[in-house]
């Protein structure tokens, strides 16, 4: 268990700058997820920490000590590769013991450690098999076992679950979480998968084009994204974005949509000039469907997706190309082609400036009920209140 910190780390491959000025502090015992779109430098960052690549500039510290010039084996780290990279010609036992044998531990000590780890991962019965005689999930465990057996201070995972099917992925995810609790080791985990990041991480680092966009706890990133990129990247389905113009920059901010409707957002937009182009963001679970006559915003339902415990409705606002996604409780589904009213609660609206930066969201207390209610109709009947949804309502 050791803290990992990166200070102004850069990495260039020829002309490609894969990592730019990354500052990162991961506390001892923390579970940190690196997320970002493909090619944003997640693997490169992990490999820099592992020492498989040398930094171009900057400093990496593990446990408080600079490790830039230490070879990988002396950094106290262990890495689990996406492809597992088990030695194909060695048995599971030999795979796990190989690293220990290099450190001249006694035969007996090695055997004990391997067996203890195998018990922990429930692979004791597989020790004499070759990797090719294992299933994907079993190989995965062996790969994790090979990392654990070395008792590293920091675990590095590069998309360890991406080769598993959905069921096994969930199961292994839970096991990794339990392993983290049990070993109390620092873990740095690269993933594409939102759910993995949200469920496993104490801290998520969002990267884009080699830069850190935001660092924070999962829910902080979810509720208070620092910019439009993070807002769009974290959360599934993706946050809805509506282009608008700022009409009033005192809380609550007032926006005008291109079609002329007015929206309110409970954010502090005082830094933005009135009249500037902005983007309003709202998550699909906060989009409320109401009766068309109760709302200023109206949309037609283009498509519905049934997902069992909830459903998604894709809505067309006016004649805009982009569809608005609404996440609905079961039983509240509108029919396709139906006209519905939309309410976007100001407290759930995010506001992004033209350069993508987010305006700080106010807490409930500091926006006035009157200010909001002057625009939002006071009575809003939910679609499902009436019992029978309105079909082809007049516009």
């Amino acid at each position: 268990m050791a803290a990992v910190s990166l200070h102004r780390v850069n990495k260039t491959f020829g002309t490609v700058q894969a990592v730019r000025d990354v500052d990162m502090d991961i506390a001892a015992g923390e579970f940190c997820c690196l997320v970002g779109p493909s090619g944003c430098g997640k693997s490169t960052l992990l490999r820099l920490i592992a020492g498989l690549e040398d930094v171009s500039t900057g400093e990496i510290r593990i446990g408080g000590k600079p490790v830039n010039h230490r070879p990988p084996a002396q950094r106290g780290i262990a890495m689990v590769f996406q492809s597992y990279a088990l030695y194909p010609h060695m048995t599971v036992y030999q795979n796990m013991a190989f690293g220990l044998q290099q450190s001249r531990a006694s035969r007996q000590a090695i055997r004990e450690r391997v067996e203890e780890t195998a018990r922990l991962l429930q692979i004791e019965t597989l020790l004499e098999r070759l990797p090719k005689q294992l299933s994907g999930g079993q190989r995965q465990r062996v790969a994790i076992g090979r990392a654990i057996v070395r008792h590293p201070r920091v675990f590095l995972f590069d998309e360890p679950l991406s080769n598993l099917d959905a069921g096994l992925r969930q199961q292994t995810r839970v096991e990794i979480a339990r392993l983290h609790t049990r070993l109390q080791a620092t873990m740095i985990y690269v993933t594409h998968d939102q759910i993995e990041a949200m469920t496993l991480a104490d801290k998520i680092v969002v990267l884009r084009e080699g830069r850190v966009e935001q660092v924070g706890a999962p829910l902080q990133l979810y509720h208070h994204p620092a910019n439009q990129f993070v807002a769009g990247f974290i959360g599934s389905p993706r946050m809805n974005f509506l282009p608008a113009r700022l009409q009033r920059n005192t809380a609550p901010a007032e926006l005008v949509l291109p079609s002329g409707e007015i929206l309110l957002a409970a954010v502090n937009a005082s830094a933005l000039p009135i009249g500037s182009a902005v983007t309003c963001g709202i998550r699909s679970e906060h989009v409320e469907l109401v009766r068309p006559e109760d709302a200023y915003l109206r949309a037609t339902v283009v498509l519905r997706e049934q997902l069992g415990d909830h459903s998604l409705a894709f809505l067309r606002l006016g004649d805009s190309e982009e569809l608005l996604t609404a996440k609905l409780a079961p039983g509240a589904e509108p029919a396709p082609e139906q006209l519905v009213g939309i309410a976007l609660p100001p407290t759930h609206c995010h506001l992004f400036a033209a350069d993508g930066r987010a305006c700080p969201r106010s807490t409930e207390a500091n926006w006035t009920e009157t200010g909001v209610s002057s625009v939002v109709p006071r009575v809003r009947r939910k679609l499902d209140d009436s019992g029978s949804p309105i079909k082809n309502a007049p516009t």
Partner: protein
Amino acid sequence: MSRAPTVSALGFHLAVLAIVLYAVFPFYYAVITSLKTGSALFRVDYFPFSWDLHNYVTLFQQQPFGRNILNSVTVAVLVVVVSLLLSALAAYSLSRVAFRGRGLLLGTILTVSMFPQVAVLSGMFELIRALGLYNNLLGLVFAYLIFTLPFTVWVLTTFMRELPKELEEAAILDGVSPWTIVTRIFLPLLWPAMVTTGLLAFIQAWNEFLFALTFTLTDDQRTVPVAIALISGGSRYELPWGNIMAASVLVTVPVVVLVLIFQRRIIAGLTAGALKG
């Protein structure tokens, strides 16, 4: 509809038969000739009518043929061992270590393998004289490396390149030295390729004639191909066909046996490279 496959199958089998005949007949003819003696040697027979091992016996009596075989084995084995050792290490650096001029070096190695032997003959002769290896088996080993090494380095480099990079990285994280990576991780995985290239190097060294003729002087340092060419009869006008055929059969058999033993491996080695990349 059903006739077309039969016709093409027939054609296929005929073609196979023709190729097998073409490949095997000379050897077969050598075998039956080696079993004949006297004037029977000059009669054209397609079946072995006599079984006389006389030629084989005189072969060993009239010259140090046993010694020649031993020389050939020594040279070929040494060539294989040295080429594989050097080329495995070279392949590791050529495939895994990024350094300036790597492409140029690989290109040069490939070019060297294209030089005709005659072109390097005189230069090589000077070199061997300077090293004091003239009429010495070690000189032959040294000379043969010039054509086995480019080939083995090239093939092993290609194979090693295809091994996943993560394997090596996992080993680096395990704290393993480059030497151990080569010997404990790469060599076991490259085993089929090593057998294939080793065998081909063996055959090249075993059959080589020009260098062996030029760089040796005395009977007891000669290798088999030269010894066979220099087998002479009782007089200038007599060519001891029987002995020559017996000798040819004797030197061919070990190669055939080796190929048969390693047949599986060779095919595995040749196709393993073809599957990926």
